[in-house]
């Protein structure tokens, strides 16, 4: 079966391709940055990803889309990926939607996800770039997902921030042993404790209590993420059908052609700001109420306010 993979685009080539794409975009005044898995690899936390996630200034959506459309990989032009991808357009990017592109390489496609808002971001991601990468703080916030596998990445990035003297790293340690061992480090500030009440338990010697509150925190972010995804997906169902019909089932339309019909479908089916329409405070309240049920009502007061984690929305 090895022959099936003979034409596989090596990871090094993919990384070089995406790095080049983002560097070119930046050189053209398009503010953007690689985040998620490839950023983790860059920061020293190995992730098994071959595709790329990019944050892009929503206002530059048209420019970035044009750049992508004209960027070939092994002679292949990109397409929007599947019928599900919302259009890469400022109006939807500002509302937190994600656009998907693909280059039809063999045996696996090469995929690029683009979003204008960093999920759970607490500050403007575009003011904290590390070259072509989003900063560890933003990447770590994005790792507070409903996927178990993401959490050690956040902790690893938080530890690295502390090692570099950035006390914001305290916000990203999600492990009782690590919290306790870092107490010989400069302690968390009052402001950080305000953002993350659990840090008030320093020096974290009450291990069982710390572990319980860590579980509660994780459950909270997970609930919030599930709710966020549910809100978006509710709107996507009719949109997907509309795009499929409009494109006659074709997935190989050129980006410009596909974009035009996606815009029409999105205008009919995708609200610009579904989370804001739902209510950000309402989302936080629901997530906390769920944690009150699953973990216990007494932990709710220890959960992060999360009011700052919707930056840009």
């Amino acid at each position, binding site marked *: 079966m090895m022959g099936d993979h003979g034409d596989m685009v090596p990871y090094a080539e993919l990384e070089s391709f995406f790095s080049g794409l983002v560097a070119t975009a930046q050189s053209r005044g398009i503010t953007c940055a690689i985040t998620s898995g490839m950023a983790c690899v860059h920061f020293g936390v190995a992730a098994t990803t071959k595709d790329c996630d990019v944050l892009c200034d929503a206002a530059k959506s048209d420019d970035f889309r044009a750049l992508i459309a004209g960027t070939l990989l092994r002679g292949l032009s990109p397409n929007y990926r*599947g019928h599900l991808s919302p259009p890469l357009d400022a109006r939807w990017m500002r509302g937190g939607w994600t656009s998907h592109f693909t280059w039809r390489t063999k045996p696996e496609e090469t995929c690029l996800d683009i979003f204008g808002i960093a999920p759970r971001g607490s500050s403007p991601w575009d003011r904290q770039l590390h070259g072509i990468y989003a900063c560890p703080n933003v990447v770590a916030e994005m790792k507070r997902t409903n996927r178990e596998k993401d959490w050690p990445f956040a902790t690893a990035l938080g*530890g690295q921030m502390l090692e570099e003297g950035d006390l914001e790293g305290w*916000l990203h340690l999600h492990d009782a042993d690590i919290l306790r061992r870092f107490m010989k480090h400069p302690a968390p500030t009052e402001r950080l404790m305000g*953002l993350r009440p659990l840090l008030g338990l320093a020096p974290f010697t009450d291990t069982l209590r710390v572990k319980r509150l860590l579980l509660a925190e994780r459950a909270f972010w997970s609930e919030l993420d599930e709710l966020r995804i549910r809100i978006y997906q509710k709107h996507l169902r009719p949109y997907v059908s509309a795009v499929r019909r409009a494109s006659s089932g074709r997935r190989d339309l050129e980006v410009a052609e596909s974009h035009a019909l996606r815009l029409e479908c999105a205008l009919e089916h995708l609200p610009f700001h579904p989370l804001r329409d739902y209510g950000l405070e309402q989302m936080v309240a629901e997530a906390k109420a769920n944690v009150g049920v699953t973990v216990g009502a007494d932990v709710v007061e220890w959960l992060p306010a999360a009011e700052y984690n919707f930056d840009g929305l």
Partner: protein
Amino acid sequence: MNQAGQSETRVTLTAAQRRRCRRIMRDFHVRAFGEELARINFLPEKRRKQAVAEMIDHARSKGVKLTRPALGVTP
């Protein structure tokens, strides 16, 4: 700028403090990701990226699918 628009909270660590941080994090990487990934994660950047590339390409050559589904929203 960081959380809630505040300026960054930065301190200068002594060499001993940095070494201690590194020890703590190395232990964590072993526990969270396993010995081999921990070893890779603490390599210098160029060798680290090369090792990650080899690992990913090996997995792909054995048929491991690493592409995530397109959801219209990023998890």
